[in-house]
């Protein structure tokens, strides 16, 4: 395995890890505010469909992005309404969101485009094109740094850079702003926030809305950045892997980056080397595909540190009288 191959695998890992990262940060905001969200998958799917459909109709990836975020946001609000206002069970609401998105997208796609539940192929400006960073071609031939910069760092779509920028931003918002402190408090002990005179309901809705935006970016990246259009069920379980990454990262933004990139790397390796020969044993591809879940279970079981979810997670807040 030469250096060029390693760079290519890392490059693929970044592409595959980015939707996970965005979805993981989306889940982080919601769960830190005490709203469990297993509907990430559904929100991403909805965003993938609306971004693909609107980009196909208008020919603009940016309008697609708006529509994708809008679609994801509408499901986020459904989840918020069910779990905050009506104090329903958050897990059930999340499952409902997933089912709703799965059926709704194909149904609308079929009646809109008559192509068997997909959107037309996107081309040109309807897709987010890779951006070549300044100087990428100039340093291409410099050993080590050249390939790293021109292949790995340069040449991704704008959404990838947005996703990476979201990591420090999320950290700053959560741990360095008043809003972030309140958001974390509302997930740990909503009564105290209420006593301080801050609206729990409003904070939680805000968190759910941020989740909608980030999950919308994740879905849009799938349909208009990586692929060229929407295909039914195209999220293929990425929302659930993002949830696993969230637990793996113990609900913290910087480890979330590490976890999602690790999961992306595992997928990239299994794409490149379906069966890994270790001399004594051969690791089948199924093993590589299962590793993210195995790691998550190991973390949950408390073998490596302890994953403690926000204390008020999953519980609707009832104001005391």
């Amino acid at each position, binding site marked *: 395995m030469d250096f060029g*191959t390693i760079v290519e695998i890392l490059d693929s890992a970044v592409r595959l890890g980015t939707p996970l990262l965005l979805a993981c940060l989306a889940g982080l905001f919601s769960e830190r505010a005490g709203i469990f969200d297993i509907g990430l998958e559904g929100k991403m799917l909805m965003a993938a469909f609306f971004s693909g459909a609107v980009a196909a109709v208008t020919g603009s990836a940016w309008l697609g992005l708006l529509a994708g975020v809008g679609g994801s946001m509408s499901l986020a609000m459904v989840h918020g309404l069910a779990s905050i206002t009506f104090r329903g069970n958050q897990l059930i609401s999340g499952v409902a969101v997933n089912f709703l998105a799965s059926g709704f997208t194909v149904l609308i796609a*079929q009646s809109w485009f008559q192509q*068997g*539940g997909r959107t037309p192929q996107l081309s040109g400006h309807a897709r987010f094109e890779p951006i070549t960073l300044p100087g990428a071609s100039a340093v291409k031939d410099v050993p080590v740094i050249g390939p790293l910069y021109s292949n790995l760092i340069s040449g991704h779509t704008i959404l990838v850079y947005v996703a990476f920028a979201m990591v420090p931003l999320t950290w700053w918002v959560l741990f360095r702003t008043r809003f972030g402190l309140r958001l974390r408090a509302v997930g740990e002990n909503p009564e105290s926030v209420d006593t301080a005179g801050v609206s729990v309901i409003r904070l939680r809705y805000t968190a759910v809305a941020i989740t909608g935006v980030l999950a919308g970016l994740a879905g849009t990246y799938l349909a208009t950045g*990586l692929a060229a259009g929407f*295909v039914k069920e*195209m999220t*293929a*379980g990425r929302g659930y892997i993002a949830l696993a990454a969230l637990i793996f990262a113990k609900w913290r933004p910087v480890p979330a980056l590490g976890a999602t990139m690790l999961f992306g790397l595992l997928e990239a390796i299994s794409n490149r080397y379906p069966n890994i020969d270790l001399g004594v044993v051969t690791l089948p591809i199924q093993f590589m595909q299962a590793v993210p879940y195995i790691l998550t279970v190991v973390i949950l079981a408390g073998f490596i540190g302890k994953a403690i979810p926000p204390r008020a997670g999953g519980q609707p807040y009832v104001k005391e009288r």
Partner: protein
Amino acid sequence: MTFFKQFLGAAATLALTAGAAMAEPALIYDLGGKFDKSFNEAAYNGAKKWAEETGGSYKELEMQSEAQREQALRKLAESGANPIVMTGFAFGDTLNTVAPDYPDTKFAIIDMVVDQPNVESVVFTEEQGSYLVGLMAGMASKTGTVGFVGGMDIPLIRKFACGYVQGVKAANPDAKVVQNMTGTTPAAWNDPVKGGEIAKAQISQGADVIYAAAGGTGIGVLQAAADGGILSIGVDSNQNYLHPGQVLTSMLKRVDNAVYDAFKEGADLKPGIKVMSLADDGVGVALDDNNKSLVTPEMLAAVDQAKADIIAGKVTVHDYMSDDSCPVQ
């Protein structure tokens, strides 16, 4: 709510025609939907061709959910439709229970073998078609490395892969074939993102022609191949038009012919297993204006020669499903 209208329409048509028990043929599309640009649409084209030629009419029904299968079959059988053709292996179990209840009705199922006295099972020799596109891939490749991306890892897809590899090796014995399966769950049929990444990984390993037999995942493979400036090969229907000038060819599975034949035979449909092979034009390669510039006269000659040899029995393409193994890698 177009779907609901369609469904009501279909139900109404059924109700209206139930009285006049004329032996009209019927066609049931699987969940992919009538206009899926692939498998089911091919079936529709076959039925349309029959209707245009004979001036006859036929009933059709589009599955909207898994739960409708048995109900749809029974309704059509009771309405007197004969024969009833259905597309897709997913009907197998349902047909196996329904067929004995309607001994006077003939059924035809595509892509699945159902062992009942009134059922015709239509299967295709995908390995022969894949052999031909493999031959073309081997000749078109400049790097000597070609790729294969399968959908879900099932024997049927390995059959595609095995035929393809044999074709590639026939054109260039030293060629390397990079093979990937997208996954082991049905999600592998609809993951264009992963398909695209696998295609990119294959490109970086030197592949310059990639054959996708992966349903919706294949769309991502074809896209990544077009973006990467290499050739790809489509499957089932003619997918050359998806990226004109960048799709070398498509492995055709003539579901339309199967439906057309079944409709034509009508109530005299012969039960048993019907193999649609190269000799019956059951499989083949797609040649049209979109890939004209890519196919050289030598390729055309080699494909025609191989086709003649396979039909004459001079060349045998190994069928993966006959012994669950492939002699070449």
